[in-house]
């Protein structure tokens, strides 16, 4: 390894650790959130250094876009009176013993992980790639070899939306007082780009890094930006159409998973000649649905201006 590379990694990881500590313990809550967002940015660079561009894409789209927006919006929604939300707990006072425990744990963990041989499954993946229906190994693992994990994960995301909506309606501070004349112009300019790059990433997913998650995250970022610029969810879109869009990804995934049983009677066994097209369909449906679901997660509750919807 090149010494400059080594130095770069060392500095990168050091700043990540410092930012992580700041993100947890900074005196000022806003500072903690900003530090955590920067930590997310650097994490994306770390994925690049680890030769994991797929994760870097997802982390960039989520970390730089949605996670930060979610945290900052939460900060804005929290009561500013200075009263903090806390849990009553007994053993939290003594920070020092926990610190010692943490250091011991770190050393132990490092010692163990350094000794691991890490055989991995790369050869098995390589052998199965010709039958996978896509060229990108990560997409093949996500949407073919381990597609059941991905399906459940989309279920987790939809479940998160249901869970948030079950808490009540959205609590957006809906009308910011500050005028921001440049913002709508920016959004008008950027929104087509968001759509374009969403589809670009979806298309890329078949052969290289890309795919449903980063694409969905980018779409969501575009939608959130539009909401922040003052756009409202159009009234004819809320209610049933919105719910259907949210549910579409999981339903499409389930239908494909069960539908392919017509071929060989095995759950999720794509028929080889149709595998590419089926995977592409699942990818597009999942990507768009993930975009809508992430936007719903940002909203934090069912959009309020619904008629005939929730009472």
């Amino acid at each position, binding site marked *: 390894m090149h010494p400059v590379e080594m130095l770069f990694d060392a500095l990168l990881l050091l700043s990540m650790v410092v930012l992580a500590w700041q993100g947890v313990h900074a005196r000022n809550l806003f500072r903690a959130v900003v530090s955590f967002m920067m930590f997310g940015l650097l994490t994306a660079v770390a994925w690049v250094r680890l030769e994991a561009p797929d994760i870097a894409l997802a982390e960039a789209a989520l970390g730089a876009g949605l996670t930060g927006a979610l945290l900052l919006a939460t900060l804005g929604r929290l009561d500013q009176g200075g009263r903090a939300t806390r849990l009553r707990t007994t053993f939290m006072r003594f920070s020092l013993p926990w610190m010692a425990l943490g250091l011991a744990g770190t050393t132990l963990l490092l010692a163990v992980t350094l000794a*691991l041989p890490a055989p991995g499954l790369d050869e098995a993946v390589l052998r199965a790639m010709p039958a996978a229906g896509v060229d990108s190994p990560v997409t093949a693992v996500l949407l073919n070899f381990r597609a059941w994990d991905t399906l459940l994960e989309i279920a*987790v995301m939809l479940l998160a939306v249901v869970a948030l909506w079950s808490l009540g309606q959205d609590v957006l501070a809906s009308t910011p007082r500050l005028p921001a004349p440049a913002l709508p112009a920016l959004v008008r300019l950027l929104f087509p780009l968001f759509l374009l790059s969403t589809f670009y990433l979806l298309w890329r997913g078949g052969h290289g890094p890309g795919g449903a998650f980063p694409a969905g995250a980018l779409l969501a970022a575009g939608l959130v930006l539009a909401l922040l610029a003052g756009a409202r969810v159009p009234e004819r879109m809320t209610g049933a159409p919105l719910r259907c869009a949210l549910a579409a990804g999981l339903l499409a995934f389930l239908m494909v998973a069960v539908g392919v049983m017509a071929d060989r009677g095995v759950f999720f066994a794509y028929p080889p000649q149709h595998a590419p097209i089926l995977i592409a369909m699942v990818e597009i449906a999942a990507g768009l649905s993930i975009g809508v679901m992430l936007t719903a997660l940002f909203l934090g509750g069912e959009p309020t201006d619904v008629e005939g919807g929730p009472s």
Partner: protein
Amino acid sequence: MGLPSTATLVVILVTLPLATATVLFASGRQPRTLILAAALLLACAALALGVNVQLEGISVHPIGGWTAPLGIHWQVTPSGTVMLVVTALVGLAGAVYGTGYFLHRAGPEGRMARVFMPLWLFAWGGLNALFVAADLFNLYVALEVMTLASVALVALSARRLALQAAMRYLLAGLFGSMIYLLGVALLYGQYGVLDLDALAAVMDPQDPGSRAGAVALTVGLLAKAAIFPLHFWLPGAHGRAEPPVSAMLSGLVVAAAFYLLLRLWFGPLAGLLNFGVGAMLGTLGAGALLWGGVLALLQRRLKMMVAYSTVSQFGFAMLVFPLATAANRDAVVAGGTLLLANHALAKAALFLAAGTLVRASASDRIGNLVGFSGRARWAWLAVILASAALIGVPPTLGFSAKWLLLQAAIAEGAWVWLGVMLGGTLLTFAYLGRLLERALLDPAPEPTRPPLLTLALLLPALLLALLACVLGLWALDDDMPTQWIPGS
């Protein structure tokens, strides 16, 4: 005409709840017939699967046709199938109870009615996916589905205490998932496989990764199963949730995490289970048994008492680890699984009956409960039967389970654990007896306008409690499966 194949039944069991939940959410309506039909179909599928397993034994179903170690497998085991059947019974009972408990109301209760069923089905789907999974990472995702759905169910009433309990539960659950995932990472770094059977084949207790991974997996699951001293989140979450929610959480969700402990320690990690590990896990169990039992004895509120009883009962279940040896492994696993099944049925019955009694009495203080009169007497009957099953009076399922463990303890000469078991049973008897005594001999006067107790509020609890009592006869049968969890 024969039953559908095992593979088909598994697909139905894991996809139908998710699909129904999604459709319910998308439509925004709660058609009662659709819900009950889906629940009934799931229950039938689980029962049919039980029959199949009795005939065929353990079977493996690769998903997508990809073989291990690359692909994910479903594995149908007797242990998992018992849990699937119990889940289906409790799930069906909860769905029926839920239609009676929520559906006529408007206002905030109407909101609860709208989201209860989708969340319930998501949790059900997560549970089913977990009981057939045989892959470390797949188990992680299934655990997350289950946990997130449970948290949302706890927060259902949106009251402050419920929200606080849900938050605590979410943090504990996520902490558990995170540590579990660390264990997955360590084991993957050591062996490069995720499939449980493949892992069992290559597992070597001497490797550093195997030990550290086992510790991490266990700590994560202990937090999720609320084993003492990581039980702090449970009483609030279970005591403050709505009754059908508490029934599922106490009966199934905690049990699922514990089932996973069994599945791992008697599956891939079996080589690591030596005397020291067993004693440590057993000591935690003994602590839980005492702590939960004593606190249950001290509670004044009915549902909090039942919640602490859950802490105590899972302490009892932890005793399977010190009792297991190479010779009695299958009997002990059978005992542990039956204990979980008994607890699921009895505790769900207890929580459902408690919900009915609290509604009838308009108070959840034990001292203010209505007596054995009117329609409330059916709820009391369910409480009595469920208590018998929890204590382990013959011929309940609880008795069969405890009997298996007792035999193992006597054969091993493990007198300490035997003493702990007897002490725990006495404590159970004490706090349940106190409930029955206070309420039956010294009841509060009936409220002037008692609310209507419909069949939906009475029957599910009664049937579950009856099942817990009757199934003990089946469990003493001789043609029980020999191997409950595939070992190494």
